Each structure stands twice: as structure tokens, then as C-alpha cells.
């Protein structure tokens, strides 16, 4: 499906996400403009706190967006509120700094004459400082607005909506049209906002400009449905973007089990905590995730056998394997050595006991009588680069691969961890930017190869999925699949254990019954 077709077929969603995006941006920018200008003016008055304040808002700017969202999660939960707070904080620096600079740089003689003619502090601000600094202040607001539209895409990761939904779903689903359907409107939105602010900057002395602005705001507010109609449901689910769109994700699950709940879209890394904090009631977790134990979560049984198998498999770039065929023997050493419970335990060591990844990886290899160097994977001139997606288990597997390969083959390796989605890490492998990364059969089949479940006899048979995946990856992309590691990290619906116990929900069918009960 090309971009145009995608946009037309998803038009309602495009409009919806764009207006959510606009809403996040406009509200946070309005707050940041008022408060930023206020702070900027304040620090021209109280010089002592100026450098401290500017330093502080500067530090906020350097906090990675996802870290800030993660930090806000336990404080204000998920959704629009933390998103607006984060966007507001990011927008502050350019506005505060430009306000301060704009006022400071006003010609000293103008200030002296104004004070000399008898202006009070407030009159000086109103008649002299603000009007003269206005173009510089507005330039700061424009800078903020453009950055803000970009950062707002990340808000999709905490269920605040916006165009990030398409972008992140597209990245995890290997769907370029979907990425563009989010990225293109976001760019247009940035250009649009910058243009509107540019017009204000140019014509702010005319009354018509402000009347026009007021008009536009009213139209936007009216047209955009600021009252977001949320479904009144008993339970709230937090799903990551990939799960919502995937063939083996929510849509199929819903049609098989009938699960009428409100869905909030969020980032995998934040999902477990959001469930733990009670911001959502159900998430789509991974069965071997260490946080299941750490946060005392309960897995709901997939009693109708919906989820396909997700056996962990190392994927290797074909050319790399030709060059270093010894890798096959190497991976055979850990084939089928990891059970579901072992993997959960290893993840738990890291997520809950805060043990370092390389230490846990090293201990695992020791149990197989492989005494590897714990600090492998940091070569500057690597023979092999190992990648991973951005979650604990994938990080750990990458460390295991690296230590194993260096120990058994003497090849030098380097770790390149934390790709933000299936598409990103797979493209890197395909293009030879990385040589190896850990993947899962179900994901490879549905997302990488874009195959339908009904293309093989039994989609729930691990062997059939593995065989089909291995053959297609080799023929379509020249990518080699190594022996499975042994564990099946399937998708699973999860609830807080106490919550599940109190509602007596232990399987997805029971969940469906509960949701549909009057």
C-alpha cells in the first residue's frame, strides 16, 4: 500500500491524530509562552537568580524525552497530562532565554529615558521592554513550537495520542507508509505553526492579526473536539503500538475473545510500570519478562490458543555468515539451553535485582562451562557488530552472543544496542550495519516477512513457523536463522496479581466474561 492509499484509507485516524497532536502542542506552547515569558521577565528583575534559572531550564532540555516521560509516570500517570507537562518543560528554555536576552539587549538610552520620564516598573515592562523584546521573544516561541511538534510524537508512547502513534507503529511493523503518514503531517504541522507565528511576528502591531489569531484558535478548538470521548469501560488496557496493529495483536485477539475495553497506546518500556502504578489494568507483556515477577504481575492464560509461538532465534546477516561460518557451531553451543523459566529468572535478576547485563550473561555461559570475558563487545575494530531491540531480554541475549563469540571464535565484537523498533533493527541487519541480533519466530513471520497466519497449516506449531520463517528470510533477504535458544517468549495479557485475584480473572476468556457482564 503506498502512502497516498494508506492516508486515504486511514483518513479518520490521520485527522484524529493530527488534531490530538495539535492539541498537545498548542496547550503546552500556550502554557510555556505565558510561564516562560513570566520567568524571563522575572530574572531580568532579580539578576541573582538569572544564571541559575537559565542553567536549570537548560538542564531540563538535556533530559532525554523518554526518560522525562518515565520520570513523570509515577507522579502523574499516563495520558495527556504528563505529555503536556513534558512538552511544556521542553518548550521553556528558548522562551525564557529569548525573553531574558530580548529585554537585556534593549538600548540602555531607551530604558534610561523611559525611567527618567517617570515610568514605573510595570509601565516600563508594558510600554518598553515587552514591545521591544517581542520579536526576539516570538523567535524563541517559534523555535520551541517546532521542537515541540517533534517531541510531541514521543507522547504516543505514554498513551497521549498524536502522530507518534503512526510513526512508532510503522517503525515496529516495518511499514514505511505508516511512518510517513505520521511524519508527514507532523512536518506540515511544524511548518504551519511556524508560519502562523511568523505572521504574528511580522504583523503583531496590527489589531487584525490578533483578531485573526483569536478566530483561528476558536475554529481549531471547536473543530478538534477537545472533549475526548473516552469509552466508559470497566478496565483500561495499555498496549504498545506494535501490538495494536500486528496480525497477532489486539485486533485478532478481540475478534476471537471479544474484549471491549478502552485502549491506551504506550511504550513497552513504560507499560509494566504503568500497570504496576495502576494507570492501566491490562497490558500486553512478554511472558519471560523479568518485570512480571518484579512487579508481581499475573499472566492470563491464552486458553483458546491465540498467540503463536515466539521462539528466540539469532538472526545473522548472510554475508557475515559466509565470512565467518564458525558462527554456526558457536550458536549451536547455546541452542535449546534456555527454558522459559530460566529466561524469566535471568530477566528478573536484571530488572528487579539491578544486576549488570554483562554479569548475568557471563554467569549463564559459566553454567554451560563457557568461561568468557565479561567485558566482551567493546572492540573499536570489530569483526562482528551485534544489535538488539530496546528491552531487557534482547539486551541480555546480545551480551550473551558477544561473550560467546569472542570466547569461542576469537572474533572481535561490538554491541550496538537499543534499536527503537523491529523495523529499525531489521533494516540495520539487512543493510549490514549490524551482523547479528536476537529475534522471535512469531515476530519474524508476521512483521518482518509480512505473512498471514493462514499461509501455513498450523500457526500454533513452533516447528512449522520456524521452518517457514527460516526459509523465507533466507530467500527474500539472505538472512540466516541460527538454532533457536529454547524459550518461547510469547505475548501475554497481564494484570496486577492482586487485581486479577480480586476479580478472579486467570484466563483471557474469564477476562472477556468479566468485561461483558452487566
Amino acid at each position: 500500500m503506498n502512502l497516498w492509499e494508506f492516508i486515504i484509507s486511514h483518513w479518520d485516524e490521520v485527522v484524529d491524530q493530527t488534531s490530538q497532536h495539535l492539541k498537545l502542542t498548542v496547550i503546552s506552547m500556550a502554557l510555556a509562552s505565558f510561564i516562560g515569558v513570566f520567568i524571563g521577565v522575572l530574572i531580568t528583575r532579580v539578576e541573582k537568580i538569572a544564571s541559575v534559572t537559565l542553567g536549570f531550564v537548560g538542564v531540563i532540555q538535556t533530559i532525554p524525552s523518554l526518560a522525562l516521560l518515565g520520570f513523570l509516570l509515577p507522579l502523574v500517570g499516563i495520558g495527556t497530562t504528563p505529555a503536556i507537562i513534558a512538552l511544556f518543560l521542553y518548550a521553556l528554555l528558548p522562551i525564557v532565554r529569548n525573553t531574558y536576552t530580548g529585554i537585556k539587549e534593549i538600548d540602555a538610552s531607551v530604558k534610561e529615558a523611559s525611567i527618567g520620564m517617570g515610568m514605573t516598573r510595570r509601565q516600563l515592562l508594558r510600554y518598553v521592554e515587552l514591545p521591544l523584546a517581542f520579536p526576539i521573544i516570538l523567535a524563541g516561541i517559534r523555535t520551541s513550537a517546532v521542537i515541540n511538534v517533534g517531541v510531541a510524537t514521543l507522547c504516543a508512547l505514554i498513551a497521549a495520542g498524536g502522530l507518534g502513534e503512526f510513526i512508532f507503529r510503522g517503525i515496529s511493523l516495518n511499514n514505511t507508509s505508516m511512518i510517513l503518514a505520521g511524519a508527514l503531517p507532523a512536518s506540515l504541522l511544524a511548518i504551519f505553526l511556524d508560519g502562523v507565528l511568523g505572521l504574528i511576528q511580522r504583523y503583531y502591531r496590527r489589531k487584525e492579526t490578533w483578531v485573526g489569531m483569536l478566530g483561528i484558535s476558536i475554529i481549531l478548538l471547536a473543530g478538534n473536539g477537545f472533549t475526548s470521548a473516552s469509552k466508559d469501560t470497566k478496565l483500561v488496557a495499555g498496549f504498545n503500538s506494535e501490538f495494536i496493529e500486528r496480525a497477532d495483536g489486539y485486533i485478532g485477539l478481540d475478534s476471537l475473545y471479544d474484549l471491549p475495553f478502552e485502549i491506551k497506546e504506550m511504550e513497552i518500556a513504560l507499560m509494566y510500570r504503568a500497570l504496576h502504578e495502576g494507570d492501566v489494568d491490562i497490558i500486553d507483556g512478554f511472558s519471560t519478562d523479568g518485570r512480571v515477577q518484579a512487579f508481581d504481575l499475573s499472566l492470563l492464560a491464552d486458553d483458546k490458543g491465540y498467540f503463536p509461538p515466539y521462539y528466540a532465534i539469532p538472526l545473522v546477516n548472510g554475508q557475515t555468515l559466509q565470512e565467518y561460518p564458525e558462527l554456526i557451531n558457536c550458536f549451536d553451543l547455546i541452542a535449546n539451553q534456555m527454558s522459559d523459566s530460566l529466561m524469566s529468572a535471568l530477566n528478573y535478576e536484571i530488572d528487579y535485582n539491578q544486576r549488570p547485563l554483562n554479569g548475568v550473561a557471563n554467569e549463564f555461559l559459566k553454567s554451560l562451562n563457557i568461561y568468557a570475558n565479561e567485558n566482551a563487545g567493546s572492540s573499536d575494530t570489530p569483526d562482528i557488530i551485534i544489535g538488539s531491540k530496546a528491552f531487557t531480554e534482547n539486551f541480555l541475549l546480545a551480551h550473551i552472543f558477544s561473550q560467546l563469540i569472542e570466547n569461542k571464535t576469537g572474533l572481535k565484537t561490538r554491541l550496538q544496542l537499543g534499536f527503537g523498533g523491529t523495523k529499525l533493527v531489521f533494516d540495520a541487519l539487512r543493510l549490514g550495519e549490524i551482523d547479528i541480533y536476537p529475534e522471535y519466530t512469531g515476530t519474524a513471520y508476521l512483521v518482518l516477512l509480512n505473512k498471514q497466519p493462514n499461509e501455513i497449516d498450523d500457526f500454533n506449531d513452533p516447528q512449522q513457523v520456524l521452518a517457514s520463517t527460516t526459509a523465507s528470510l533466507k530467500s527474500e533477504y539472505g538472512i540466516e536463522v541460527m538454532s533457536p535458544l529454547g524459550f518461547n517468549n510469547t505475548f501475554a495479557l497481564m494484570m496486577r496479581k492482586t487485581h486479577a485475584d480480586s476479580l478472579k480473572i486467570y484466563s483471557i476468556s474469564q477476562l472477556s466474561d468479566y468485561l461483558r457482564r452487566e
Partner: protein
Amino acid sequence: MSGVSLEIKPSETVVLLGPSGCGKTTLLKLINRLIEPDSGVIEIDGRSNLSTAPHTLRRKIGYVIQDVGLLPHLNIEQNISLVNQIDQHPLKKDRLIELVQFTGLSTKLLSKHPSQLSGGQQQRVGIARALANDPSLILMDEPFSALDNITRNQLQDDFLRIPALKEKTIVLVTHDVQEAFKLGDRIALLNQGQIQQFGSPFELLTHPINDFVRSFLNKDRLALFLQNHKIDNRTIEELINDESIGQEEKHTILTRALSSLYL
């Protein structure tokens, strides 16, 4: 500054003169409280200037500075009426036009912005602005120093001619001896934070009180004398340039005059 004491009479123009760093601008700014005194009293019409709030005080005192300080985003009309606006009693249109004419400006300039005006025009606006609220006291800090010679002379001549300025009490700061003698009714010559001599231009010229005063005026002495010393209401400069007076007579006048200067 210390030990400074001087009394300025109504409608008088007093020039604070001195080398840079002598305290003349400080003294000026003490009057409208742009600088607050450590000790001492400045009374205006018998009341201490510390008894009124600074902004109220300043609205009753005109203030003209070297760089004019017009607000670049307002047009000339708005600039002139700004004091009235912040004081919340609007400037009447005929008063505005009167001010503009007084200060030798064209009413066509009213809708222009400061950047469209020449330096001389800008300072005329500055003076009009200082007059707008009809204050009885006007402070001028090097008002003509940034202008070229010809423009400066024009403005100085107009300064003496503008009727509205004549009735005002004016304190004017300058480092330019010629300007001080041209504009001042009395001159306070300052050095190192103290008044060296306070008197009429002629007094300073003919009876310098100490070496500083003498040496400060020395370079300009002759020129100042020729420009300022009057015989029958005409300056010596004018007499010498008068074609109707014979050479003999001019010689007598000069000799007599110079002897009064140097003896």
C-alpha cells in the same frame, strides 16, 4: 561627591560643567533620583525630592539625554505624548502641534518613526517630549554632544530662542565650555566631585577663583571673551565684524576690552 551646595533660581539655566568623571552627571541624576544620595538634601520648591515617589517626581521633571532614547516602535506623536500617557492625562492635539512648532519640527514628522529622523530632529523630539507635560524643571544631560557642529549650533540657537524653554528652570550638563557659556545663565564648574566655582560666565572668565578654574578655561579664554563680553549690548565679536565701525575705533575697543580680561 561631597560638600556640594548650590541654589538654582526659577527660570534660570544652570550649566554643570567639568571634565569627565567630575560628578556633573551624578549631580544631575540626584535631582530626579535616578541616583539616590547617601546623605544630603535636594529640595525642589522647598520640598525634599525624597518625599515623593521617584516616578511621580520624574513626571514633573523633564529629562533630555545625549542619546535621546526615543522608543523605536512608537511614532513621533506617540513618543512625544508618552509622559502624558503614563501619567494618564492625554496630550491635547493643539498642545502637541504647538510643541512640534516650538522645537522647530514639521508636523509631517509626527507619523514617522524615530529611525527615519536625523540626529538633530531626534533631539528636537527629545526636547518636545520633555516639554510635553509642562514641567517647571528640565534636566538635560549632554543634550547636543552627539550632534555634528552645524546641527549643534542650530539646536543651541533654537534652545535660546524657544519661548517655552525660557521660562523653565533648566539644569544642563556639558563638558563643552563653549556650550556652557552660550547657554548658561550661571555655570557650576565641577572637578573631583566638588564645585570649584559657581557664578555667571563672565565671573568665571574674569575672576577665576582658583588655578583649576583658570586652567580649565584658559584654552578658550579669548574666544569666550570675544563672544560673551558685551559693550553697549553687543559682543566684541559683533563689533569687530561690523563694517560701519572704523579700524581705529575697533582697535581702541579691543585694547580696552582685552586689558579688562588680562589685567
